[in-house]
């Protein structure tokens, strides 16, 4: 809460200065500017530091170097990366995670977009209940679903397969994406649909040819969200992917805490390698993030 009060203090600094020289609207005194910048800088530092820290630790060769960060400075090395990439199953874990992540993204965005569009544009019986169900699925704890889900997957022969894991991730990622996209579709004027219909497009054609291209910001946020959900998930992955060659990164990494007797430096190096693709996806969609998220937020 302290941020709130400080934020307002910087705001109040404006009229205080205004007494001396009238400031234009939206102009800021020098003091207020310094306050604003230093506040933001502190928070940005706190936000970025742990990420930078892990990057730094990953460059030290010793397994206790994280306790003596000074040591790393003198002998920066990439040996951890070399070991992780060439001497562990890292490559195949990465590949598995990519398959599952991208698969979840493709399937999840596609089905949540079509559902979101239907809810946004068509007043069909049951649309209200559907939205409420989406919200409800956000509340399911892993523990209730785990055993029954395991049994269903076993019956369907989906255990230890990419498709199975992708479907499971869709259940957690799709409801929120559909909500988000429904909100985004709401901001696209209905007149566009009507124009499309008049020109002879089917409802699905309207959706596919007109709305999807217009909704790119919203779609990219949904894509980002679904990808991250799949990329970072631990609990389901560690119980549904049984054979070592199907491990995703989140699971693979855990196997080597015990295997290598907690060699944190290897952990750090692989953590950095894991963060990279997520970072890439993130910066691809980041210019759309704000507009996409808000649209989702403004409409309950």
């Amino acid at each position, binding site marked *: *809460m302290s*941020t709130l009060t400080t*934020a307002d203090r910087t705001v109040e600094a*404006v009229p205080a200065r205004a007494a001396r020289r009238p400031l234009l*609207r939206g102009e*800021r005194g020098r003091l207020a500017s310094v306050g604003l*910048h230093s506040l*933001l800088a502190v928070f*940005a530092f706190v*936000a970025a530091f*742990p*990420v930078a*820290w*892990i990057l730094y630790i990953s460059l030290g060769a010793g397994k206790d170097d*994280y*306790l003596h960060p000074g040591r790393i400075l003198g002998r920066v090395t990439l040996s951890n990366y070399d070991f992780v990439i060439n001497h562990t199953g890292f490559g195949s874990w990465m590949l598995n995670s990519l398959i599952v992540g991208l698969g979840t993204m493709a399937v999840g965005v*596609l*089905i949540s977009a*079509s*559902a979101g569009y*239907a809810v946004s544009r*068509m007043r*069909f019986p049951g649309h209200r209940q*559907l939205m409420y*169900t989406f919200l409800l*699925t*956000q*509340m399911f*704890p*892993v*523990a*209730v*679903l785990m*055993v*029954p889900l395991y049994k*269903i997957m076993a019956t369907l022969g989906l255990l230890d397969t990419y498709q199975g894991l992708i*479907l499971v991730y869709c*259940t957690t990622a799709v409801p929120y994406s559909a909500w988000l996209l429904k909100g985004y579709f*709401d901001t696209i004027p*209905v007149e566009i649909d009507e124009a499309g219909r008049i020109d002879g497009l089917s409802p699905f054609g309207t*959706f596919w040819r007109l709305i999807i291209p217009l909704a790119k910001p919203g779609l990219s946020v949904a894509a980002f969200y679904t990808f*991250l959900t799949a990329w970072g998930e*631990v609990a389901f992955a560690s119980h549904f992917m049984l054979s070592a060659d199907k491990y995703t990164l*989140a699971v693979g990494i855990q196997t080597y805490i015990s295997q290598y007797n907690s060699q944190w430096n290897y*952990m*750090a190096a692989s*953590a950095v390698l*894991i*963060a990279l693709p*997520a970072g890439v996806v*993130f*910066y691809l969609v980041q210019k759309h*993030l*704000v507009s996409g*998220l*808000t649209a989702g*937020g*403004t*409409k*309950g």
Partner: protein
Amino acid sequence: MTVAVQGRARKERRDREPRPGLIARLRRSYDQHWYAWVMCAPVVLVLAALVGYPLVQGVLLTFTNANSLNVGRTIGVNHIPDTYSWVGFKNYVDLITGPDNQLVPHFVWTIVWTAVCVVLTVGTGLGLAVLLNRRIRGRAVYRMLLVLPWAVPTFVTVFSWRLLLSDGGAVDGLLGLLHLPQPSWLSDPLAMKVAAILVNTWVGFPFMMLSFLGGLQSIPNELYEAAEMDGATPWQRFTQVTLPGLRPVSSTVMLLGIIWTFNQFNVIYLLFGSGGDDSVQILVTYAYQLFFGQMPQDYAGSAAVGVICLSILVVFTGFYRRWVARNGAAA
């Protein structure tokens, strides 16, 4: 705005709604809506098969004494059938009044955890969004850095925090420089709770910040100008213009924040594993511990804890939505 357009379309369609007999109504409804249903079908199917059905099974499981020894499984070519039996409400009674009386302390801590975390993330997110919404040099850079905790997967960042918070780690080093006490963040019960809340706030604020930032940008500037003309102080402008303008965003985002924090599995599980003091486990991670942390794995007990979590959230959401609707109507 666009919302108004949406409202108009909705009303027109409602006027057209047919009122003849049941069969005819169903047929017309089908003719009119089959596109919508087809478009929703994939989501509904996936959710019904992988959430609805397991949920029913899971709830049924809580009335049995299922554990890892008596649940049917396939080992190689041998199939072992289910051998668990019905026990009625025994699991729930045991949880609440049982010999180790685990549920109540975990429940209290879960409520405290959710309340504190949501207040902190929403507060920080809102504050930073207000700051970032000004015209300021380097805004893009600040935003990029501030979103990092969300952009990097949780198990990477939480791992980093684990190194930072470990005994003799960087946080202790910093506290030592300032001559402050250095609690053992990963084993002392109170320090663990503080650490968990701080790390979760760190992980959670960017989402709030971005949502509020979008909300702020949708508040028309004219409102601020009008308020200024009427002589409103900056604080009054914040409480009378900004906060009401954010209400549509904040009511949704806060509900999601509460649900997600209540069910926040990753942060606590990854930060402490199953080590450290037991009291830091919230209901969800406690259920997971019952599930995997012991032999034989107590499926029924863990599912019962899960069902309790779920019912708390469902009841809470019902009240919350009613409260939001009433406040919205009053405003």
